[in-house]
């Protein structure tokens, strides 16, 4: 990057990034497609702080007094709810977007710490079923690879209505990532762009969805939980309708949520921040008497144990991670910097998941590149990272005197700025003021 010299004033409106994008658009005539989530700064969990125990609250002894982390998902209708040891799950990411080795590494890492993984657009691979002890099967509009045998092998089913990165948008897997195997799983010719529809082909609206969910329950003899995943937009209404449609679990994915390939304009300009969506979801559940009965999983920009604890304090039962899990496997690692530069990026900036050239062997179908990721080693790294998230969340919960992560509550939080206070519905630090609450 060129250093700024005195007297050279960069426009806030026409910044160098903006100028670069206008020039790129003028040259290519096509919008920018990329992976990763929103890169702009939006109010997030960093804008919240915990109020540790003091005179009026009792803390728990770190390392001595227990702070539970387990979670049960799908207690509403399913015969076999999902029992996880930690409340951090691996979000749906497709084989196709990710290499088979990456999918296997996710499964291995999740198993080591007792959590679940999720399939993605394109169906379930035998490898991921074999390597994931608890596997959630996504039911997407494209229905690529949708197969009743796999449905019956799943530990839970996730009906995907949308993603935080692109609420209201379908998917895209560009031709360069369509190998023989990917093409065969999706029943399409090799090498062509694969569009995933943005609407389900055989239902519209919540009344139809209720019947659709019953169909999935009938096929699986009411054994497994059914999740509904929505991108965060009109979250209060979506959650109410999802509960009414019969969901066991609701997944709300905020605008920072990652994607494998979406238009940049979509990623950056549609949806609401994760932090803003949680209180809406929780209010909807509480009004229906369903909070903690229909479990809430939150995703979109979860990076640390602090994020996990804050999401849970706002009322989530669990969180899901996508981008952070890929980073734990080695995505954007400095050791590949030279190679990132060869393809016009740099470590720490790489987001061209759709191109299939990932030097770390994660978002690729190129066998040579994919072989760079050892699934066992990747699994260990992911397990380490998930353990750190859990330990960090426990540290914060104990400081607030909580013997289980689920006992964290909004009362434990304050906000650093007015925006965060209004979105999260917690007081501005040092005051009793919650914007919009009238006191």
């Amino acid at each position, binding site marked *: 990057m060129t250093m700024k010299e005195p007297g050279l004033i960069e426009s806030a409106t026409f910044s160098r990034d903006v100028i670069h994008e206008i020039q790129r658009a003028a040259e290519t005539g096509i919008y920018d497609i990329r992976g990763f989530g929103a890169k702009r700064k939006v109010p997030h969990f960093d804008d919240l702080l915990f109020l540790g125990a003091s005179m009026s609250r009792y803390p728990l002894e770190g390392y001595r007094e227990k702070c539970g982390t387990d979670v049960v998902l799908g207690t509403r209708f399913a015969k076999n709810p999902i029992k996880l040891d930690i409340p951090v799950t691996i979000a749906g990411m497709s084989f196709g977007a990710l290499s088979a080795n990456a999918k296997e590494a996710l499964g291995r890492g999740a198993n080591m710490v007792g959590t679940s993984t999720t399939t993605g657009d394109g169906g379930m691979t035998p490898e991921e079923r074999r390597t994931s002890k608890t596997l959630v099967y996504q039911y997407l509009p494209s*229905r690529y690879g949708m197969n009743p045998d796999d449905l019956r092998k799943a530990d839970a089913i996730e009906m995907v209505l949308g993603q935080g990165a692109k609420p209201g948008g379908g998917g895209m897997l560009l031709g360069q990532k369509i190998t023989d195997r990917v093409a065969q799983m999706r029943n399409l010719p090799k090498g062509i762009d694969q569009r995933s529809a943005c609407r389900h*082909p*055989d239902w519209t609206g919540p009344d139809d969805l209720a019947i659709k969910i019953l169909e999935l329950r009938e*096929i699986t*003899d009411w054994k497994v939980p059914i999740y509904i995943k929505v991108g965060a937009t009109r979250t209060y209404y979506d959650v109410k309708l999802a509960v009414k449609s019969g969901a066991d679990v609701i997944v709300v994915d905020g605008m920072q949520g990652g994607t494998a390939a979406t238009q940049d304009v979509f990623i950056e300009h549609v949806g609401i921040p994760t932090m803003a969506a949680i209180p809406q979801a929780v209010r909807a559940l509480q009004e229906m008497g369903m909070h903690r009965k229909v479990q809430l999983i939150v995703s979109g920009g979860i990076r640390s144990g602090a994020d996990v604890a804050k999401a849970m304090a706002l009322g989530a039962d669990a969180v899901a991670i996508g981008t952070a899990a890929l980073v734990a496997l080695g995505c954007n690692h400095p050791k590949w910097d030279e190679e990132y530069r060869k393809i016009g990026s740099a470590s720490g900036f790489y987001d061209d998941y759709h191109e299939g050239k990932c030097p770390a062997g994660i978002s690729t179908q190129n066998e040579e590149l994919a072989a760079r990721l050892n699934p066992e080693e990747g699994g260990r790294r992911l397990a380490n990272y998930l353990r750190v998230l859990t330990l960090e969340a426990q540290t914060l919960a104990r400081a607030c005197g909580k013997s289980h992560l689920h006992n964290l509550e909004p009362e434990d939080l304050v906000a650093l700025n007015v925006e965060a206070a209004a979105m999260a519905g917690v007081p501005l630090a040092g005051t009793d003021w919650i914007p919009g609450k009238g006191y």
Partner: protein
Amino acid sequence: MEFDLKKQTVREVNQALHDLPKDQSAEVVVGGISGDHNLAVGMDHPVKITLNGHAGYYCAGMNKSAEIIINGNAGQGVAENMMSGKVHVKGNASQSAAATAHGGLLVVDGDAAARCGISMKGVNIVVKGSVGHMSAFMGQSGCLVVCGDAGEALGDSLYEAHLYIKGKVASLGADCVEKEMRAEHLEELSALLKEAGCDDDPKSFKRYGSARQLYTFKVDNASAY
């Protein structure tokens, strides 16, 4: 084996069907049906099931191996995501018939509504009457045979599915074009007509398929996306 939905619930009937041995043929008749949803879904058995009455949504959904006959009309998404086997609707079918189905044969004696064969992935569909708008939308593979007319935007954003229409086509969707009917197509079509019990002359049909112009993004096509 007989069931009566006036006396039993859909859950009880489906569970009994799922509990049938997977390696034996059997004949099952279900009566007392009045628009019940999700009948005979998720079958994975080489059995013949006759449903007497009008079925609700998703009847025979995700069928594998079974032969399912509906003596009446079928609601939305009949035989959706079917993998194999045969589903025969003696009346009309509502929208999204055989949506995303990967295999097997769906026969509709009457008409099928909008989006018949939407996102079809290998299924064969024979409709003796007409089909509604947006039929075979994003159809990936398999055949849609229509002995009557097709509604607007037939085959929009089509991939490799084969469409054979005897009557009028109100309009073709983006990237769907009429194609030459060659010997192999006549053969494919005759076999399907025969299997569905139609005596229409294959030569009286026209074939439609993908122009393959939208397969990879081209700026010049921007208005079609």
